[in-house]
């Protein structure tokens, strides 16, 4: 983690497979090209007609060919032609390809079009046939042939370098460098070239492996060393004449050729993985980052939260009272992913219940485990994850159910609306195709009837121009429209439960409001139970009957919306609410929560919020905190829940003067990575302050 420079080179000399490849190449280059010609007792052209086609022996380590010549000696001397050829090709192809690619990728415009058209041409040329012409007209001048091959192969290298440059160029940090006042040359050298170095290693290896194939092939056709001088291709040609009688000479020769090609392509492959692995790290969307953070988290926390036995207290109490069968019951759900031999929990001991027609909001910051919990309701877990506990959907266990069972449940019992509507539709098919397909999956309908039903569904989600929309491809529609279509897909099987994962986060505010409106209307009309994942308290306020706050993989507070907003009891709920910029007064400092959510695998064994909590004491950090019912339908995971009420009351009086909090608030900003102690002090005041002010805020939020 210390430095990323030279990752490719380091990978090549540490990866066991590429070490083997490097060793083989060393044997070929040092052993065959240099050492054996110096020490061998045989000349490569020396015939011994008494000892033809011999198998390996002490005298001839690799046996002899049909003229009794020592195969090892011929291979060693013959390596010169191939190695020279490969070096010529790799150098020419890379120099031309990289230079042109960098220029075209960096400057775009006319140059790019010209170069690319030229590369198109080069790539449409049947290489071997052209090389045959070149060989014919140059009286088999091997060097010229290899130079031409290098030029032909530069087209492939050009494409790769151009694409990488374009890729890097499109990245925001290049624009940032430009706005920092760097010259184009500096940008190319400092930001683009280093990234292309890895590509250079990859391309050299790939080109070398391809060049050997062509070079040996040409040798096979007699276009390299003039007989009786040895070359690998020539030796294969000679061996091929005796394959019906004695196949031996073909074996060592082919083996050397194949191993050399294998070595180069292995190097290319390993280098490529190193570069790709690195690229996956950058330029990802926020959602993906939080997922990959989850995967790369280091250690599993030893803590097992003992008591979520209060399992979804509020709802179960409600259910018991009204004797309604819940639609969805998640109990004691723990989801873990394997990481470096151990397993890391993403979500621990989560229990919640969803009644028919009820809308429950799961709130929290990124990395709280909201999405993992919500998707588990559909039986969808992160790749490689394992889950314990149970998820019961309308009386049917979902965890561990067969894919067939799940397929029947999904869409018709429970359906899903995703965060990124533009990514939620298959870009390769028209909207109509996708919608009609799912209609026909749920119901046996003729194509025509299914189309009618699809139009109905679009009307349900308030799309007017239905015919037009059915014919559109996803990239031709707006985000809000795409989300309506995803909702239509979700409704196609007439489900009882909808899981909506941040359904409006990616949308513009006015589109967001309309989608929220639509969801509310549909929920009422169809009496849907909705599990809504969001980080936005405004969305909870808009849609939900009940809210569940999650932090670092567990539920910290659960209550009906009215009390949750009027009297939140967990310090995290208070701070999260208070820090929302939409709820805060203009002019004056904004309340914020210092620090970040601890990533999975680094959760403390005590209260997981303690490090960011203004009310935390030593006792909070001692042991896992249970989720407890503090009043009817209101559960909180905090051991100081009652004391805090008093403290806030006191602080509110103090903070009215404003003086003290303002001074401390300045310090909050310095929540640097390593200033844990200082941050701690700051954190205290921030959360206290947040808590104290939030009630005042509630009464004054309304802007309109």
């Amino acid at each position, binding site marked *: 983690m210390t430095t990323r420079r030279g990752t490719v080179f380091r990978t090549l000399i540490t990866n066991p497979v590429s070490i083997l490849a490097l060793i083989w190449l060393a044997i070929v280059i040092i052993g065959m090209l240099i050492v054996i010609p110096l020490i061998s007792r045989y000349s490569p052209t020396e015939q011994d007609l008494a000892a033809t086609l011999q198998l390996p022996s002490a005298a001839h380590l690799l046996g002899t060919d049909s003229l009794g010549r020592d195969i090892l000696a011929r291979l060693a001397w013959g390596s010169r032609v191939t190695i020279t050829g490969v070096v010529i090709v790799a150098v020419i192809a890379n120099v031309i390809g990289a230079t042109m690619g960098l220029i075209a990728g960096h400057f775009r415009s006319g140059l790019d079009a010209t170069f690319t058209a030229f590369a198109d041409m080069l790539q449409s*040329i049947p290489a071997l046939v052209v090389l045959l012409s070149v060989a014919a007209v140059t009286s088999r001048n091997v060097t010229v042939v290899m130079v031409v091959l290098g030029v032909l192969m530069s087209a492939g290298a050009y494409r790769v370098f151009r694409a990488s440059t374009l890729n890097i160029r499109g990245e925001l940090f290049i624009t940032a460098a430009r706005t920092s006042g760097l010259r184009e040359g500096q940008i190319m050298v400092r930001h683009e070239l280093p990234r292309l170095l890895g590509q250079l290693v990859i391309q050299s290896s790939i080109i070398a492996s391809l060049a050997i194939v062509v070079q040996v092939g040409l040798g096979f056709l007699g276009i390299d060393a003039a007989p009786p001088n040895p070359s690998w291709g020539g030796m294969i040609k000679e061996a091929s004449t005796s394959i019906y009688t004695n196949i031996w000479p073909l074996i060592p020769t082919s083996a050397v050729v194949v191993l050399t090609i294998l070595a180069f392509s292995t190097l290319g492959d390993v280098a490529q993985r190193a570069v790709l692995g690195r690229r996956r790290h950058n330029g990802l969307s926020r959602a993906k980052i939080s997922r990959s953070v989850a995967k790369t988290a280091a250690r599993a926390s030893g803590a097992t939260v003992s008591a979520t036995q209060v399992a979804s207290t509020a709802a179960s109490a409600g259910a018991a009272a009204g004797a309604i069968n819940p639609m969805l019951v998640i109990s004691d759900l723990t989801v873990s992913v394997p990481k470096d031999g151990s397993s890391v929990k993403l979500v621990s001991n989560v229990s919640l219940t969803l009644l028919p027609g009820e809308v429950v909001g799961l709130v929290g910051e990124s990395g709280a485990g909201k999405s993992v919990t919500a998707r588990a309701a559909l039986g969808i877990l992160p790749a490689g994850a394992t889950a314990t506990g149970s998820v019961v959907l309308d009386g049917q266990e979902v965890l561990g159910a067969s894919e067939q069972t799940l397929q029947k449940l*999904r869409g018709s019992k429970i359906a899903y609306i995703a965060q990124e509507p533009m990514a939620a539709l298959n870009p390769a098919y028209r909207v109509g195709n996708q919608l009609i397909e799912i209609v026909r999956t749920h119901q046996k309908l003729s194509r025509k009837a299914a189309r009618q039903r699809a139009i109905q569904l679009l009307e349900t989600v308030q799309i007017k121009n239905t015919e037009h929309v059915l014919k559109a491809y996803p990239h*031709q529609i707006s985000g809000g429209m795409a989300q309506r279509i995803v909702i239509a897909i979700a409704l196609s099987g007439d489900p009882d439960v909808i899981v909506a994962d941040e359904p409006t986060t990616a949308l513009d505010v006015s589109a967001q409001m309309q989608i929220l409106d639509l969801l509310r209307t549909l929920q009422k009309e169809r009496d849907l139970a909705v599990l809504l994942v969001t980080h936005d308290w405004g969305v909870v306020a808009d849609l939900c009957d009940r809210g569940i706050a999650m932090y670092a993989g567990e539920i910290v507070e659960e209550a009906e919306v009215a009390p949750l907003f009027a009297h939140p009891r967990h310090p995290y709920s208070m701070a999260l609410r208070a820090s929302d910029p939409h709820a805060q007064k203009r002019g004056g400092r904004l309340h914020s929560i210092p620090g970040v959510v601890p990533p999975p695998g680094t959760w403390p064994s005590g209260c997981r919020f303690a490090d960011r909590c203004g009310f935390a004491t030593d006792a909070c950090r001692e042991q896992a905190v249970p989720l407890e019912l503090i009043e009817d339908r209101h559960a909180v995971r905090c051991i100081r829940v009652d004391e805090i009420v008093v403290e806030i009351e006191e602080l509110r009086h103090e903070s009215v003067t404003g003086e003290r909090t303002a001074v401390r608030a300045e310090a909050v900003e310095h929540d640097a990575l390593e200033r844990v102690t200082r941050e701690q002090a700051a954190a205290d005041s921030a959360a206290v302050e947040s808590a104290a002010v939030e009630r005042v805020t509630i009464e004054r939020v309304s802007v309109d």
Partner: protein
Amino acid sequence: MLSRQIREHPLLGGKELLVILLRRLAVSIPLLFAVSFLTFLLVSLTPGDAAYTVLGSSATPDQLAALRQQMGLDQPILVQYLNWVTSALQGNLGHSLITGQSVSEAIFQRLGPTLSLVGIATVAIVVIAVPLGLTSAVRGGRLATSIDTISFAGVAVPNFILALFAIPVFAVWLHWLPPSGYVPLASSPNKWALSLVLPVATLAFGAVGIIAKQTRAAAEDVMSSEFVTVQRANGYARQSIIWKHVLKASAVPIIAYLGVVIVTLFSATVLIETIFAIPGLGGLAVQASSQGDLPMLLGVTVVFTLIIVLINIVLDVVYALVNPKVTFR
């Protein structure tokens, strides 16, 4: 079905298809001229010219000069080239220096075997590699590992070396297949098929691994995208998600790779046809090269390039069909 798709396709609906084809031609026509002219130029730079090749070293300077005049070799290179182009456009690619046979005729005779070889190999590659790659993307595990291994072996073992090992095994020891030679389809479909098994198999072997690996990579990429989760979560049939949605969404890089692979297949016929003694264009090129038969070589090169250009045009259309967003680079 396809024609309906083309008609209704937003990009191919009419003008756009024409635009795509015109742009490809704008690249292709200069390419054909460039390739032929460069080859022509190379030929003219050769120390011993065509007249020398025909008459041999015993010819007198007078004889050479006469022949040069007769062949037009005394004219400026550009004029020579224009003469060649003019007759080439009329289907006349000149005559072999060695046999005197019409180049166009020789090429036409040899087109069949090469096209069968490459055509069948391409179909085999697509039919085997794409399902294999897709299945391994879904299943992962051992299947994925074997595809990696095959793909690696395919790259590392050049197909002509593979052919040299395949002949003794399947033809000499097992007697399953003829070791070499080619039987035209017209004379015996059965023997034609048998004679092509080994050449096609050795030609396609490496490419199957490469395309399967690319298919797997592309499909894995698509499978991690949000729409697959949305489809799973909303009850789309599993088979449809894999074989319809993932396949089409990952088709673009697969087709791009296929284009590159087909070009290399044509190159590889040069060696494969030599080894299996198939009377195709590749073999003709080798023969012409070794005899210094430059008009023949020029003709073969141009025809090869033309075939590749046509394939690229077809791929462009397929590419536009599977990718609604394509705007032709």
